[in-house]
């Protein structure tokens, strides 16, 4: 059921379909858990926030009218539960993130986690080998050397370049137009001057 979109899953969940609920939970668990963890809560506290958010979602299945807004809904609900848990635990918010309040989270917080989810979903749609290569080349810190990547990918070093270009093109196509905009068109224009 991994390829089903949120509208189908939400509708199935509303009818009591447990496998649809599991798919939805597994799809959004990294997003939900990343919020309390980024705000400094411990793993067990993040699990509690995850539970609160799942509870809110199961109760709101009928009231989410626009399935496309589900990620935003989850971010808002999770930040609310995170704020509550952090307040009880006496946690100070990290310096690199805007502080949460009991009200709706700042737009920049929603955008930050939404972007993360979009990239996560796009990577999830790319074939396993391509995804692994992009993860090793660009998303792993510290970045492994080309030789190490070639070894891990079991492919000649000289093939990494052309393959990565194909994989990045696929990633860009998946992220357009919501996140990337027109990076490709700039590349096709002749240089100025």
């Amino acid at each position, binding site marked *: 059921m991994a390829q089903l979109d949120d509208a189908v899953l939400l509708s199935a969940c509303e009818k009591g379909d447990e496998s649809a609920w599991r798919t939805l939970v597994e799809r959004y668990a990294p997003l939900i858990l990343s919020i309390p963890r980024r705000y400094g809560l411990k793993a067990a506290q993040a*699990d509690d926030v995850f539970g609160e958010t799942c509870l809110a979602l199961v109760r709101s299945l009928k009231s989410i009218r626009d399935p496309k807004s589900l990620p935003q809904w989850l971010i808002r609900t999770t930040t609310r539960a995170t704020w509550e848990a952090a307040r009880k635990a006496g946690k100070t918010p990290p310096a690199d993130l805007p502080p949460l309040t009991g009200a709706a989270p700042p737009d920049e917080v929603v955008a930050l986690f939404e972007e993360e989810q979009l990239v996560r979903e796009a990577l999830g749609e790319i074939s396993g080998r391509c995804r692994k290569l992009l993860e090793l080349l660009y998303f792993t810190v510290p970045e492994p050397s080309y030789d190490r990547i070639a070894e891990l990918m079991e492919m000649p070093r000289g093939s990494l370049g052309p393959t990565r270009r194909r994989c990045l093109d696929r990633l860009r196509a998946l992220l357009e137009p919501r996140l*990337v905009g027109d990076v490709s068109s700039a*590349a096709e224009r002749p240089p100025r001057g």
Partner: protein
Amino acid sequence: MGLRHADFTQLFDHLSGRGRRPVANHIESCPACTENLEKARLILEAGRRAMKAPKPSKRAVGRAMRLFRGFHRPPRPGFLRLVLDSFLQPAPAVRSTAADPPRFLRFDGQITVELQLTAGSRGVDMHGQLTPSDCAREVEVRAADRVLRRARVGSEGHFEMTNLPRREVEIRIGEARIGGLHLA
């Protein structure tokens, strides 16, 4: 001869320190490439954060599955179902800038119970309203099979209790019950 604008791959290589010097020089002096570099940076950083996101524990997934099953199971006779919790709403109907904003809860079933919970000086203060207003004369708060507090219901269905202990309680309104309510 000038360079072509940097493409998506070149921007990613540049950001990850694998770019070539002539391309880097072009990006630095090209407003269009600088703009695209920021878009690529956003994706790169979002991807790196996504890679660090924790996986849910078996316990957490198990709990989510139990919640789902519990919700789709018919409620036990007499127990009211929670239909609104202001702490779990993404955009609370009532917003407060106070450090401890009141919590609003609504339960439905054979009757409707609305609760407002506020942090009191020595516990939690509860203000409630029943609909229909004449469905009960008294509201009982219990914990571990012991009555903690009783309150009379006013003519318009209102009732109040102050300084309730911060713990899990059950509320009984005639035959109707609210179970597993955490007062915190």
